């Protein structure tokens, strides 16, 4: 599953080459969108490893999460409450959970592979 990393590198290169900059006041939105996208990506990887992956859920989740996070941050700015922290917290927690699940799955896979090799 090296595809996401390859895509990530390609995206970073593309972003650095295009030399696009966003205004300071919008960097909050972008950071939260990045967080939401990362959450979706790791969610997708976990689902793939657990064999419950659904294309529609993945793609719709990606866009929906980003829009939700950005609008939450927007609302927060206009209400005077740092609502984007809620999104950061929720996505952060889920990110850690997803990564933990992925790690366990990979660990079990690795140990089962090892056992199989030893049996053979």
């Amino acid at each position, binding site marked *: 599953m090296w*595809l*996401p*990393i*390859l*895509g*990530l*590198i*390609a*995206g*970073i*290169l*593309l*972003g*650095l080459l295009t*030399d*696009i*900059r*966003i*205004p*300071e006041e919008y*960097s909050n939105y*972008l*950071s939260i*969108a*990045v967080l939401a*996208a*990362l959450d*979706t*990506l790791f969610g*997708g*990887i976990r689902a*793939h490893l657990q064999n419950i*992956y659904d*294309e529609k859920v*993945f*793609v719709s989740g*990606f866009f929906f999460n980003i829009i939700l996070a950005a609008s939450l941050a927007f609302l927060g700015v206009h209400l005077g409450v740092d609502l984007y922290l809620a999104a950061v917290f929720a996505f952060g927690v889920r990110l850690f959970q997803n990564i933990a699940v992925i790690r366990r799955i990979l660990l079990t896979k690795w140990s089962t592979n090892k056992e199989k090799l030893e049996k053979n």
Partner: protein
Amino acid sequence: MDKHKKNFSFIAISTVIGFMIAIQFQSIKEPVERDTRDLWQLREALLQEKELQSELISEIRSIEEKLLAYESKQKQSKEQALRDTIEELEFEAGLTEMLVPGVTLKISPILEEIQIGASVSKAVSPELLKRLLNELNMYDAKYISVDGQRIINTTVIRDINNETKIDGHALSSLPIEVKVGVDNIATAEKLYNRIKASKATEEFFTENLKLTISEPNPEVTIPAYDNPIRIRYLESLKADEGGNT
């Protein structure tokens, strides 16, 4: 097919994420990346900022000065106008000391010509003095003082108990000095020549007095009139009386 589709969406989404991260990185890191100036560039920038600062300070100062000027103008405009008028009037009335071009006349007794038995004139008669002053006025004299007494419009020269007095000041001891001020040095020159050519010297001589005229001097000090000016018969004009044009 399904696997390809899955891979495609993974790649697409991770590319988008990478793109967003790169943009965010660039946006946030921009100031740090940009400040790579060396010492001399920094000095130049500092110089520019200082120039701007001094420009702003001078602008502030000039504006503050203007503000102050406006404030003081508002406060003093009437007062200042009155002061100016007073000064002007004092100047015209002869209440200020003048430093102008002019000549100095000296009236002294002719000691060497005195004959035995003849009376020694101790003073100038008022008639003679009046005549001299009239003559001087005829020759464009503007400011005159006799023995330190400023001659103004209301000055009286008269004989009180055989003493010649100018506004109460007795001309007792000879010699006396008559200072005459005019507007410019050319007029002073003219005045000097005309007095020399006039009969004044001879008129003084008949009274055993010598009138000596100094060369035109670019700076003659005419003292101010030091008595209060009394105006007894003058009244201020009301606006509806007489012409106010």
